[in-house]
């Protein structure tokens, strides 16, 4: 952290964010729960385990194909809880509203929150509202926090990946990031790219029913699949190998990425889960994923190895290998 002010890439979810969180927040707020660096903290309450998490939503545009900032604020926090194997129960919602925001829009956003909460079977039980003068915020920012209960015996976290695990994903990568980017920049293709924003707790419950031995669950949001897998590799002290030809990418997303010079491995997802599963239960878990509406295109994209600890490698289609690093800086389209 050698420059004196916050830079935008420190919020991009990549290496700069990771370093800011480590060096400043974890360092100063120091405790055993933060040090775990998981999507939720697991705390002991009267002999049981509770998962606690919080997330803020500042997406621009606030409405995008497949959702809006309200549904996203529910999905994202529900997913952070589900990634610890927790059953999400209660959410809180804090709103920072810019003076001049049309009430009709706010109504639509909160209605989508209500619908998303109903679908995920969680209750939004407390809230807060602040209004700031025009220009002091961008229309609406939402913070949600959530708690959930972790069933006894479930031990899931970024540091439990083991050599031999299969790396699974429940569907195509990069949909949310490209949907938002195309909407924001007015890029239009034949069909509008839809965000994958969805609550994953029901899918995760089905996966855990299939096998309680899942080691890692993570939702590859900002920074994308590449950054999330790097975090897992580092936390677990393992290497991860990906197969280029197995990566599921929608044609329109691949096309838009191609056009803009972006790598879908670094594009955000909001309805995807990456799982590291022991080889002997991988087939069962995969089958459970594929029979769920949010996992129709689930597949194995790679495996965990004991070598190259802390690193992610990709075998290319022509038999070469390359390192897949964390996102560095922001991803920008190419200039020619």
């Amino acid at each position: 952290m050698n420059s004196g002010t916050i830079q935008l890439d420190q919020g991009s979810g990549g290496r700069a964010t990771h370093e800011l969180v480590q060096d400043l927040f974890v360092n100063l707020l120091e405790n055993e729960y933060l040090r775990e660096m998981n999507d939720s903290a697991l705390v002991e309450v009267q002999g049981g385990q509770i998962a606690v998490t919080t997330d803020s939503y500042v997406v621009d545009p606030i409405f995008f194909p497949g959702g809006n900032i309200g549904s996203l604020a529910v999905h994202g926090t529900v997913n952070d809880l589900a990634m610890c194997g927790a059953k999400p129960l209660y959410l809180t919602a804090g709103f920072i509203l810019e003076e001049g925001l049309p009430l009709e829009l706010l109504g639509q956003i909160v209605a989508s929150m209500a619908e998303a909460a109903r679908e995920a079977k969680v209750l939004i039980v407390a809230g807060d509202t602040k209004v700031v003068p025009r220009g002091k915020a961008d229309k609406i920012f939402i913070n949600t926090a959530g708690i959930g209960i972790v069933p006894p015996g479930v031990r899931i976290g970024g540091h439990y990946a083991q050599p031999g695990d299969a790396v699974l994903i429940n569907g195509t990568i990069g949909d949310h990031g490209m949907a938002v980017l195309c909407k924001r920049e007015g890029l239009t293709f034949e069909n509008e790219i839809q965000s994958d924003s969805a609550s994953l707790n029901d899918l995760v419950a089905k996966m855990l029913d299939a096998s309680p031995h899942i080691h890692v669950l993570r939702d590859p949001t900002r920074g994308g699949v590449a950054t999330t897998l790097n975090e897992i590799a580092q936390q677990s002290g393992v290497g991860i190998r990906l197969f280029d030809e197995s990566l599921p990418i929608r044609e329109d997303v691949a096309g838009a990425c191609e056009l803009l010079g972006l790598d879908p491995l670094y594009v955000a997802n909001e309805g995807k889960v990456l799982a590291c599963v022991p080889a002997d239960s991988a087939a069962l878990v995969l089958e459970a994923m594929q029979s769920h509406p949010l996992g129709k295109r689930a597949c194995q994209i790679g495996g965990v190895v004991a070598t190259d600890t802390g690193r992610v490698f990709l075998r290319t289609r022509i038999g070469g290998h390359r390192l897949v690093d964390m996102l560095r800086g922001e991803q920008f389209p190419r200039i020619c």
Partner: protein
Amino acid sequence: MNNLKYLDEYRDPELAKSMLETLKRRGNTNRTYKLMEICGTHTVAIFRLGLRQLLPPTIQLISGPGCPVCVTANEDIDRAIWLARQPQVIITTFGDLLRVPGSNSSLNAERSKGADVRIVYASFDALQIARDNPGRQVVFLGIGFETTAPTVAAAVKQAAVEGLGNFTVFSAHKLLPPAMRALLEAEDLRLDGFLCPGHVSTIIGAAAYEEVVTRYHIPCVVTGFEPLDLLQGIYLLVDQLESGKAEVINQYRRAVSWEGNVAARNLMNDIFEPADSTWRGLGAIPQSGLKVRTKWEKYDATKRFSMPDIQVKEHPGCRCGEVLRGVMAPPECGLFRKACTPQNPLGPCMVSSEGTCGAYYRYHVVSTQDYKEGKTE
């Protein structure tokens, strides 16, 4: 977007393997071929495929000055920073340029200090910002090759149609063929062939390389970006070299025509005219840039603002210049991975997603030899 389906045809692993075998057989000579990919997108595609490690040692790929941000001279970055500091100015730019360090600052640093610097994805987005902010001056930073320049020209035309008086372009556009000539005139570099850029060639056409081929007797192959494109491009260069030929071959016919996009070039030539231009690493090259024609000077930021002379300071250890000319690989630079990283870039080749140093860093290549052998740190 439907036509993107066919891309899979150019990614067939079996075909790629057999082409690699052919190249290995053909490359089994005592001559070493130094082939330059001039396009940053090629550089990144080659890294993403792990292609260098699969080629025989007699076929060497050298990255050239194909990243527009990287070749932008320090003085132009400094001028852009000066513009960003002017009151009531909104700078609109492609994102890549933001973190490129000038002599003392960067656009990113200026933005966090309060300058209004906005990332756009197309020159027309800058027009919209100008329409929305009639009381302010909107400057678009025109960085890029022949691919980008016509779109900027179109924005100027549109501004004229609408009478948008608060929109100007700071043109630091570059033209590729003059840079190729400069590379071939350089005494410290021997090149045997060019993989010519796919995107730029859609505008200038494969014909644009004829002059280089004739004058320097060096083969040029216009090449696409998919695995089989690259392999075929390399094969077509090696094949020419072995038979002593030097021709322009258009491998990327599905996107590039012989004459290129005449309408786009006409538009570009209407607004801009060739001018001497300074390239980072290559120095001043005659007629290698584009400036706004006098007829359109209303839209020329260098005319709208009276810019002072700027004292340019180069970072003393930065070797981006040599990297851009292909005479040095990034790991040979003393700053690489030590003082100069993507988080704290000292030179543009580390900043840009298509910069050679950034690509080496991202894929953790410590030395060029290691990369050939598929090793990383």
